[in-house]
């Protein structure tokens, strides 16, 4: 007789870690996306170069390789971090690189006349970015950010490769211990799907909140 209640608990504990990785990873990704996206439009050459290198590097190499470097290779250079931190960093840096292009595109799509109104009202360049362009660009970023967040959720499963006990890892444990394939994999399917649905739902809610008055602006 298999104690399914205990195994379910194990999988839920894995799911919780997956949620944690997703949330913290998304925060890192958001910060990196904003920093690199704005950095690519900087008037300083060096800032643009750093932002561009970051984006190209993290888009151009796989998240496996990035994770292994952060977790296995950096310690050889004297920098060692916990497996959770390594997972969050790999996820955040990788998804942030994609997000940076979303940020840049959204900023570019806000019309030049909004900048000009900001100059005419004597805002500083930072005030223009922060109070005029960003709120309008953010609305344009949101749907794609929702996509990226779901991608990030699904990518969290790579951390099972560095022995973090996330949902995918626990499903394998359950499968090995019970010999049942259907039940753990069905559990994984349902749990990931439920998490992805909650992200979509949360993003829609957020979108509705920030689009107030912008219906004529959205394209």
């Amino acid at each position, binding site marked *: 007789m298999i104690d399914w209640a205990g195994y379910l608990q194990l999988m839920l504990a894995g799911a919780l870690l997956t949620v944690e990785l997703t949330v913290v990873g998304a925060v890192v990704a958001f910060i990196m996306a904003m920093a690199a996206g704005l950095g690519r439009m900087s008037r300083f050459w060096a800032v643009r170069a750093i932002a561009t290198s970051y984006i190209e590097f993290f888009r151009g190499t796989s998240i496996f390789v990035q994770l292994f470097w952060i977790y296995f290779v950096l310690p050889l250079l004297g920098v060692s971090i916990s497996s959770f931190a390594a997972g969050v960093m790999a996820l955040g840096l990788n998804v942030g690189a994609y997000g940076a292009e979303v940020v840049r595109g959204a900023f570019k799509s806000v019309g030049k*006349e909004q900048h000009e*109104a900001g100059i*005419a009202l004597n805002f500083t360049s930072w005030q223009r970015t922060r109070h005029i362009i960003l709120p*309008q660009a953010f*609305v344009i970023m949101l749907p794609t950010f929702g996509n990226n967040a779901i991608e990030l959720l699904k990518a969290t499963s790579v951390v099972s490769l560095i022995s973090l006990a996330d949902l995918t890892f626990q499903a394998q444990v359950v499968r090995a211990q019970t010999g049942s394939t259907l039940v753990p994999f069905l559990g994984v399917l349902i749990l990931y799907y439920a998490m992805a649905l909650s992200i979509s739902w949360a993003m829609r809610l957020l979108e509705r909140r920030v689009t107030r008055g912008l219906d004529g602006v959205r394209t």
Partner: protein
Amino acid sequence: MVQPIIQVDGISKRFGELTVLDNLSFDVRPGEKIALIGPSGSGKTTILRILMTLESISSGIIRVDGEPLFHMLRNDVLVPANERHLHKMRTKIGMVFQLFNLFPHKSVLDNVTLAPILTKGVARADAERNAMSLLEMVGMAEKAKAMPVQLSGGQKQRVAIARALALKPRIMLFDEVTSALDPELVEEVLNVMKKLARETDMTMLLVTHEMGFAHDFADRVLFFDRGRIVEEGPPKEIFNHPKQERTQGFLKKIIAAGHRV
């Protein structure tokens, strides 16, 4: 003789091969209302955009209130202005755009209060009180809570005027502010501007195709063609007895197109 508030001295503006303003010079006295007219591409909008520092100049010098706009003195030598100098100069100047350029994500009231709060550190309560009296003046107080997308073009433009006035500029620039409006909405915006001209001693520069309005509103009309001022004078003279052939031709075309003079 009062010092001119704007002195444009031999400026040129080139975009690559194209010369938009060609060694242009004129003065504006404090409080003067000036209408800039002329065919499209004659440079009248460009000079407004330059005064708002939205465009740079290729050569020459502009003084606002006696101070160079795009230059500053360092060791008795004029050098290109930095952002801080431009920031200081812009406090004297406000602009209203053809397409309103309201901030779509801000309510009418917030559109008007944002700049005073952020750029002058005015307390929100004071900024809102001042904004409400300006919205009152342009007849938009009832819409203070509305979002720009809910307004007609004429209403948007009246809010944009209030927004520019909130910073209390000494010079106001109006760039074809009625060109994008449906004909029946033009009047409400022009009335606000007439009121402004009557009740304030603000210096106003206006680019317009509304010749009737230019006639009533302006102390002086500048006729632009190909980056130069071809003819200038009081509206009565320019509209009734233009001396230059190009002015005559332009006015004839405008009247033929159905504009009132």
